[in-house]
């Protein structure tokens, strides 16, 4: 039904001419961050909005990288064949960890070390003194340990990402099949490290925004959103590289179909996790737990909650159901962009109510969303740096794991 498969040569798939877009990304990123910082300092709210907008942007792109790392690990741990053609793209998406780590250190950890509640209320000594429950957690939520943990998370992520993309790139040259087995062998333990670091990183970055609230499911919830948005980015980036010619004839609608299926599956999974977390707290109705949802779902953030219900669940559920949607590149691209938008909405709804929560007299239930230009500039800024890191990684290297022994299998792959 299709012709014999020709493995492309290294030259055909090598990406060139990305240094200029990468530098543009860097420029945009720095400009965006500068604008955010300027807006933040002039806002006169002791950098609260700046800190929270930046957190949304950082976690947005961090979750894309984390999802890509998970994708890479998943393919190795299951010795999957179909995904070889897109795995290099996923590997490239993990290149942003160092730059994101730097941002986290400067924007999130820095203020905490200085005792300033830009983002985290528990960084403020007086706040902790006033809250007995948070004193209980001081052994965990303190500046030094926070710094150590952040360094540990990024060390793990950067290390794992470098190992897998490094092995894969080396395989392009020497075609050594044993590298595949080596990666497969290490993927299991890396998966465990990934699971634990992601969970605790999300507890630290996101859950500790409201240091009194807790949920055992929160790590899973964040993971679901991360993988969802990461698949969307993977689809978009692959299409872009296909359009530029590097993956032309290699990636087929079969592969998009599979990515689309995973997107659909994680639409359902995210909804399942989000609903379970909400329903269990809503039902038991224990004040210490429900208040977090109370001002997110019933206060002025009610619109956002409904938007998530419809936009993050119902619409993509119906939209991504059909196989024709998943196999059509431009339609799938539109859905990928849609998914990214709603991942942002999800994070915004998680983070921003806490902006006024720690402030004396602040009540998120009556304040509601306070949009600012900073929300946008932070996304542009971090996004620019993310693009810079990813493009820089792809540039000059094959966009395809050309030495992978399962490449022919992946290229011939057909959905049943």
């Amino acid at each position, binding site marked *: *039904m299709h012709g014999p498969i020709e493995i492309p040569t290294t030259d055909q798939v090598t990406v060139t001419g990305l240094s200029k877009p990468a530098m543009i990304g860097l420029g945009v990123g720095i400009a965006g961050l500068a604008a955010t910082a300027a807006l933040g300092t002039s806002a006169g709210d002791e950098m609260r909005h700046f800190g929270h907008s930046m957190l949304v942007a950082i976690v947005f792109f961090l979750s894309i990288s984390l999802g890509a790392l998970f994708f890479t690990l998943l393919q190795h741990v299951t010795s999957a064949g179909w995904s070889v053609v897109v795995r290099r793209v996923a590997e490239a998406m993990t290149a942003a960890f160092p730059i994101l780590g730097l941002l986290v250190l400067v924007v999130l950890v820095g203020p905490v070390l200085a005792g300033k509640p830009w983002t985290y209320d528990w960084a403020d000594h007086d706040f902790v003194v006033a809250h007995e429950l948070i004193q209980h957690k001081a052994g965990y939520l303190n500046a030094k340990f926070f710094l150590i943990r952040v360094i540990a998370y990024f060390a793990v992520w950067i290390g794992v990402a470098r190992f897998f993309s490094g092995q894969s790139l080396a395989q392009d040259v020497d075609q050594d099949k044993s590298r595949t087995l080596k990666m497969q062998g290490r993927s299991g333990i890396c998966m465990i490290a990934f699971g634990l670091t992601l969970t605790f990183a999300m507890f630290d970055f996101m859950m500790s925004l409201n240091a009194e609230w807790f949920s055992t499911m929160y790590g899973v919830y964040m993971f679901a959103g991360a993988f969802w948005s990461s698949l969307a980015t993977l689809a978009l980036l692959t299409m872009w590289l296909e359009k530029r010619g590097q993956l032309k004839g290699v990636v087929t609608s079969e592969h998009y179909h599979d990515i689309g299926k995973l997107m659909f599956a994680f639409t359902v999974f995210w909804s399942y996790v989000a*609903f379970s977390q*909400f*329903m269990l707290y*809503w*039902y038991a*109705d224990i004040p210490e737990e429900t208040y977090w949802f109370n001002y997110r779902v019933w206060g002025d953030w009610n619109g956002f909650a409904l938007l998530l219900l419809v936009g993050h669940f119902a619409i993509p559920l119906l939209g991504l159901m059909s196989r024709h949607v998943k196999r059509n590149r431009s339609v799938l691209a539109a859905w990928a962009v849609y998914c990214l938008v709603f991942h942002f909405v999800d994070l915004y709804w998680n983070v921003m109510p806490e902006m006024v929560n720690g402030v004396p007299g602040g009540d998120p239930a009556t304040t509601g969303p306070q949009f600012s230009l900073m929300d946008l500039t932070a996304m542009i800024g971090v996004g620019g740096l993310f693009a810079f890191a990813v493009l820089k990684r792809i540039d000059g290297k094959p966009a395809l794991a050309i030495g992978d022994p399962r490449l022919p299998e992946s290229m011939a792959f057909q959905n*049943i």
Partner: protein
Amino acid sequence: MSDQKKNDEIHGVVAYFDDVDSVMSAARKVRDAGYKKWDAYTPFPVHGIDEAMGTKPTILPWIVLGMGLTGMACGLLLQWYTNAYDYVFLISGKPNWSLPANIPVTFEVVILFSAYTAFFAMLGLNKLPHLSNPLHKLPKFRRVTADRFAICVEAKDPNFDADRVRAILGADTSEMEDCPVDTSRAALPLWFHAVMALVTCATFIPLSLAVKGRFATSEKPRYHVWPDMDFQRKRKTQTGWEGFEDGRSMRLPVEGTIPRGELRDDFELYFGVAQGSSVPPRATYDAGSMGGEKHEWLQSFPTAVVVDEALLERGRERYGIYCGVCHGAQGNGLGAVALRAKAIDAEQWGWVSPKALQSDSAKAYTNGELFHIASHGISSMKGYGSQITPKDRWAIVAFVRAIQASQALPKAPGDLPEGVDFEPVPTIKDVRLSEASVDAPAGGTEPAGEAR
């Protein structure tokens, strides 16, 4: 003509194939020859044969989607109807119509509807079960479910021509035969039909019994399939038992037994009469039988009750709870109930207006009588002894006395003591009732003011 005749006798032409390639190749040829009533038979779903046969995509997914949405509507409707409409009851403070709690069941109903639809619509679209197929009569055809492939072009096809079909199939086939029309009857033995008929009839028995039970009446007691604790080895109250000498199943209390907490040796406190006096009957106060010298009513308060500010405060609180609704917060007889009774002219049904407690007749009662009235009632007022403890009743008596004393102050403003701003409360005779005054909370000074 001979072909036409032959077509009536055969079901179709069946060709057998040994591998996937030949059956696919033959299928393409039959498809291209334009036949409609034909099919390829394979032991497993062959990848790509749909295209080779030109099979159109099935509408099954749409049926399933439709039934899934129906399931959602049914699930939600069921939960709304049962818990929020037809049988409303409060559970753990949740709203009657609580969507988050209804999602799991709604989801399950969606799956239930969709899955059953997928299965039964598959059967329907394939026209299964179809137990008597002429192809099953061919011994060679039986290998098709194991390791062989076949194509059958049916004689019903308008373009059917046995020779042409044989020519088309002949290129790839390893073996070919005609499938005769199935003329034999009952493929299943007779006993099977008999058993099935019996079983079918038997399945109606429970249903008919249920229908009978629903519509028939009977004078016999319910038949207890499960005893449900209805019969227990014990004696019920107020029945007899030969095991005791007196033949009763219950024992009488020992002579002189006093129920716990019911010892009432302080006559002053419990009955409002002097110690040693005759105890008044536990009955509504009746001036004829109780007034005068029959009982030695207490003039002051029992020694067990200390009259102080705390007691008056307690009395005011209790009075507000139990008495004020009729007698009014200030004792003028203008409580909410009294006002309402007047508004609807309840006297025509024998209503007696609550007494204004400042009235001279009320003042004339001794403390003991007031206590008895509070305990056992007077005229149409019922007693409150069962609701208010004796000490609280005395507190109310003290408060009533306080009301009476305050209303007895001189009426002219100049005669009042320094710093007291006093105006007597209205009595029921001063009130001209309007709808507004009836609905207003009575007893306070505001409604009284409005009423005037």
